[in-house]
């Protein structure tokens, strides 16, 4: 049973160590990646924004069409 506990302690030490080392490395890697990206694409506009714009226009279009139909209806009354 002594053996079981010592196996557990070993597992805990290595495990927690790996988790910390990994996430520390990930911090470095992430900062490095972000620095690279910001260096080479400083003012890149995200496609999400572009899409949002399109959608807004579609909604506007819809509103215009609705308005037209409403007007048409009112004229026919």
């Amino acid at each position: 049973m002594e053996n079981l506990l010592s196996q557990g302690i070993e597992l805990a030490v290595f495990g927690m160590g790996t988790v910390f080392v990994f996430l520390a490395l990930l911090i470095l890697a992430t900062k490095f990646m972000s620095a690279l990206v910001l260096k080479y694409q400083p003012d890149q506009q995200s496609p999400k924004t572009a899409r949002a714009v399109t959608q807004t226009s579609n909604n506007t279009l819809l509103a215009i069409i609705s308005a037209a139909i409403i007007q048409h209806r009112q004229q026919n009354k």
Partner: protein
Amino acid sequence: MSQLVELWQTTGIYQITLQQFLMILIGSLLLYLAIKKGFEPLLLVPIGFGGILSNIPGVDIAVGQGILHQFYVMGLETGVFPLLIFMGVGAMTDFGPLLANPKTLLLGAAAQFGIFTTLLGALFLTDIGWFDFSVQQAAAIGIIGGADGPTAIYVAGILAPEILGAIAVAAYSYMALVPLIQPPIMRALTTPAERALVMTQLREVSQAEKIFFPLVLLILVALVVPSAAPLLGMFCFGNLMKECGVVDRLSDTAQHALINIVTILLGLSVGSKLVADQFLVASTLGILVLGMVAFSIGTATGVLMAKLMNVFSSQKINPLIGAAGVSAVPMAARVANKVGLESNPNNFLLMHAMGPNVAGVIGSAIAAGVLIQFAS
């Protein structure tokens, strides 16, 4: 007449055991918690219902050719269900707050202390003869502290399928209990001034960074902890589908139809492990207690790590967001926000807490990789 006796003997009233009756009550309790109390209903409704189905006497549902056993063999024995869920979760995760403040990754590391101390606790309880957990079982119990459902189910399915039911129930119940478990610990370990600390606003993160991050993460996993690659690989794949912007129809399906289908089947499969003779054992009680301990320690070490970081860094972080490092996305981040608002009504921590929150997912997946590597 003899036929009437035979007919009577096919009824459940005749065949039901006390254990099965108790398990049906437990399944009903899970449904009550899920439906009435809002405890992680997406999982606990299928798990609870599956648990009831599994304990119906005189019919094979959770064993043999029974449908729930078939789902279990198809998706849990193979690991397919938790990995597909993880892919869907990846497709729903926004790494923006983490990328804006990468050092919060350390909080996601610190909160995994709960996993390993609980592992040791389980082995200690075995050492003193209260329980009889193997190293594999202890590891699977510890992972409850990761506060991440699919990770816990994936690890338990590999290391200790015989206690999968108890582990899944504990993991999802405690994730739902985060708003009750965490605040007292958070308040005990922080001063009002610390809780009132307002953090500087996060910078905008570009699309390119969001696309590269899952790839950077994957490569690092491949180089350092390959045993975590199935879990984090599927997670990063889901996230890349979301962020790359060219496969939106796949990303949508991963976030909706696919993850919903798998959630139903996974929940029922987990429910099949609530059969009386597997669940109603002494070790279940130990698992439930140890799981709670794991959550609490993870919360505490997350908060303490945040305070430690403030000692060394000029850019202060509110220690409350350390508690979000256990994962339990997005519940833990909301709790950090709520406790922060109590001390300072202008202190909006939600986005700041999302960083350690998703870091906790990565942290516990790494821990899972180590446990699978060395304990299996």
